């Protein structure tokens, strides 16, 4: 049995340490390198309009609530009529790992009804084509297959509007080449990124995210959702050394979290190869860079049902499936995330050392410094349900879980 080099043994030797890395968020408080290569970008960061809506579940109230919210942003037609719209959804992590009995869509993933409602409204507003995109964990499977693995009906999304299609952006997909997106100002960690063609072959880009905390970056909202645009064939553990791999293998932890390996040489390389290996330093900058390089025109955050504690099920963390019953939408990701953080009970102006950024720098700060948007709700126009009325205190849920755990 041991005289052959089996696939099992190969996997055991080289497998995706990335996944394990993801399970070990940094708790270090390493000094934050101050590096904004282009301070003028911050001055140009636009203010945005953000709307907040209440919706208790994914039933019949969802569509009118979302439609009203998008009208409050100025209406979708102006943005999408006759355009190709790309919607980046969130199917993070291992699909077989739920939070207790709760389904993925009720905790960590974009809910299919939220996706369908968004698609429907985009179609109603005249979008020429709507492309639902995601790079789900370590697979080249179609998004239909990923949905079917959770018993969703992908047809409901495909039929929610004319001309809807899906693409898994973990690899080259339907494109002939990868598209390069450069970071304005030259970048903080990477000068640019090579992404699946879908992020270039669109007129309008939408980040459809989930309202969640994150084990490393504190929160994962519409900004962090864009991290998942990076193809595993270039930025994964199994990425090709010189050229992108044919198919995705592994997670992004080795390249992005830990700086343990470089992306395929065909893609832009790290500006400073000796840059910090602290994921709490790296990830906020990388996420902000991606938002600056491929800005979203519209951010929608699904906070109807979600999970507290982290972006996926870590097992050992105090986490709970919750029902904040809220949707946040806005015209740029930084502004939208700032409002979302306020609703979660966090200060959007907080930075490393203050919850939720206990082990990381603020992604929002770097988003602001790279000119994506302004994180302070007071500097943006916030409409719809007042933040105070939509408040759902994520930290309080965690404290309650810990208190109850102590009792038992």
């Amino acid at each position, binding site marked *: *049995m041991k*005289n*052959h080099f*089996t*696939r*099992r043994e190969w*996997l*055991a*030797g080289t*497998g*995706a*340490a990335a*996944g*394990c*890395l993801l399970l070990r968020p940094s708790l270090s408080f390493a000094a934050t390198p101050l590096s904004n290569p282009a301070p003028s970008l911050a001055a140009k960061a636009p203010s945005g309009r953000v709307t907040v809506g209440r919706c208790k579940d*994914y039933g019949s109230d969802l569509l009118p609530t979302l439609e009203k919210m998008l009208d409050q942003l100025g209406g979708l037609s102006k943005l999408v009529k006759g355009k190709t719209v790309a919607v980046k959804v969130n199917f993070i*992590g*291992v699909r*077989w*790992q*739920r*939070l*207790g*009995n709760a*389904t993925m*869509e009720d905790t960590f993933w974009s809910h*299919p*009804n939220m996706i369908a409602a968004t698609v429907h409204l985009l179609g109603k507003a005249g979008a020429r084509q709507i492309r639902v995109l995601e790079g789900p*964990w*370590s*697979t*080249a*499977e*179609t998004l239909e*297959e990923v949905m*079917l*693995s*959770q*018993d*969703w*009906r992908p047809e*409901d999304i495909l039929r929610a509007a004319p001309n809807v299609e899906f*693409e*898994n952006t973990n*690899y*080259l*997909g*339907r*494109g*002939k080449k990868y598209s390069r997106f450069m970071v304005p100002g030259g970048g903080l960690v990477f000068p640019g990124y090579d992404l699946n063609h879908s992020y270039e072959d669109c007129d309008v880009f939408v980040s459809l995210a989930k309202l969640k905390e994150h084990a490393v970056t504190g929160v994962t909202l519409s900004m962090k959702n864009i991290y998942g645009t990076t193809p595993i064939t270039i930025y994964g*553990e*199994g990425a090709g050394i010189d050229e992108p791999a*044919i*198919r995705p*293998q*592994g*997670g992004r932890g080795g390249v992005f979290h830990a700086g343990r390996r470089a992306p395929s040489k065909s893609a832009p390389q790290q500006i400073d190869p000796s840059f910090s290996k602290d994921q709490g330093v790296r990830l906020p900058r990388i996420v902000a860079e991606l938002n600056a390089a491929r800005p979203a025109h519209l951010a929608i955050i699904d906070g109807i049902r979600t999970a507290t504690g982290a972006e996926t*099920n870590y*097992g*050992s963390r105090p986490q709970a499936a919750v029902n904040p019953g809220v949707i946040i939408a806005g015209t740029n990701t930084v502004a939208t995330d700032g409002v979302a953080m306020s609703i979660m009970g966090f200060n959007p102006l907080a930075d490393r050392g203050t919850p939720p950024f206990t082990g990381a720098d603020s992604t929002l700060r770097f988003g602001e410094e790279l000119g994506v948007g302004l994180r302070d709700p007071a500097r943006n126009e916030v409409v719809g349900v007042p933040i105070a009325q939509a408040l759902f205190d994520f930290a309080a849920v965690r404290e309650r879980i810990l208190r109850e755990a102590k009792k038992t």
Partner: protein
Amino acid sequence: MAIGQQSVPMRWTAGPLDIARRQKEKDFTPEIAEGLRKWLDPSLLASLQGTPVNCLVVSWASGLPTDAEQQQALQPLLQKGRQAGLDFVGLVEGPADKTAAVAAARSAGLSAVAMEAVPPGNLGIPVIAWAKSGQALWGAASPVLGVSDGLWPGVPQEKTPTGGPTNLPWVDSNGALLAMAQALAPGKPVWIFVNPPLQAKLTVENYLLTVADTAAYGGRWVISLDDQMRAGLAAKTAQAAAAWKKVTDLLAFFEQNKASGTYQRMGRLAVMSNFSEPDRVFGEDALNMLPRLREPFRVISRTHALAASFDGLQGILYVDQEPPDSKLRQKLIAFVKAGGTLFVPSKWPDPEGSQIQLSSAEAYLLFNVRALGKGRLAVAREDKPDSYFTCMDVQNILSHRGDPARLYNGASMNYFYQASAQGRQGVIHVLNYSRRPGSDNALIYLKTPYRSARFVSPEIPSPVALQWAPQTSPYEGGGAELSLPRFSVYGAVQMET
């Protein structure tokens, strides 16, 4: 009692031969030698009283000068053991003079000998064919088949984090080997020889997992204790006695729940192969990979495939480079024409059907797909494709739409599903290779739920009735889920229509 289905074997490591063998190990100490001498003491057989263990495998001959001394030293143990109704199997290894060893075994009244190369002819004593899995003599006329290189099951604990690209941690399991054995040698008892890893700090859960990882799959682990456990039992420590009781209770549990041993494995996919060279590694890899992809499967021996039922199958992964004979090919093609999907190697001669033009997004697939009748013939593009990606593509081409069963919240678990011939009873075995309860209850999803379900495990005092929760996802419908109580090593869901 004749060696066979009813035999519950244990490796009884004791005497000069085992001392001589252990002396070659770098961790050898006088205490270890003393422990091995102590285990010659027939009074230690008392630890087997009331347990299912009824067969002891002893070192008999290794071609060393100590062979005769060993055989002599074992005499009191053999005598007392036989009085207690125990069978003894003599292990004949290496360059031992097999004829002499067999003669000595007959003379000493052993029930059988186990040896790697089985000499021809009637030796006057049953011989257990004992070999590495790759050289196993599946067709041997042996009461039991012994595999000498079983895996010590668990999540590998190398220095670096390990795992597959599925992000589920890798697990070492004997499940693939035993699934293969059951297809190649149906009804034949298979004994897995694997010793506890030296210098490892073992817990009782290590032993329990090794028992479960073989028994659940229909095999037998030839129980093998580490030095510490043997010393503890010899010294009659309470800790060792408690651990040993747990091990033997688990053996008894599997003896009491043997009914499912006759059930058929369920899955929409069959892996068909003779698992012989040059296809053995790929085939065995596939059987290891599919559980990690959460794809339930059954195994069909190519030799027996003409007689096998393809009912309920949606796909067949035909592994062997050698094409099937014309009758089997006809049967396989009929399966495709009726709507199935057949996955074949690149060397499949004159593929039937017409090529389906795949989209550019499917260019990564390791198969060219051809339309044939209501089904598809998927021909591998490469002569030596990667086994993991092959399994992924098989699953992808079959589609999750037809998933008969799923397991959630069991990253370190494997499961398999069996049903009785009439389908009235079903059982889902779940093995936890982390050896500790998960933070969340594992969930089992079945596309076609049974009327009732209960959870049994040696870790709980009595079965727990389970309630089906209809899949609340607004979607495909039809399925339902069960939330399992948390468990450390093994549990099973027993179901009835």
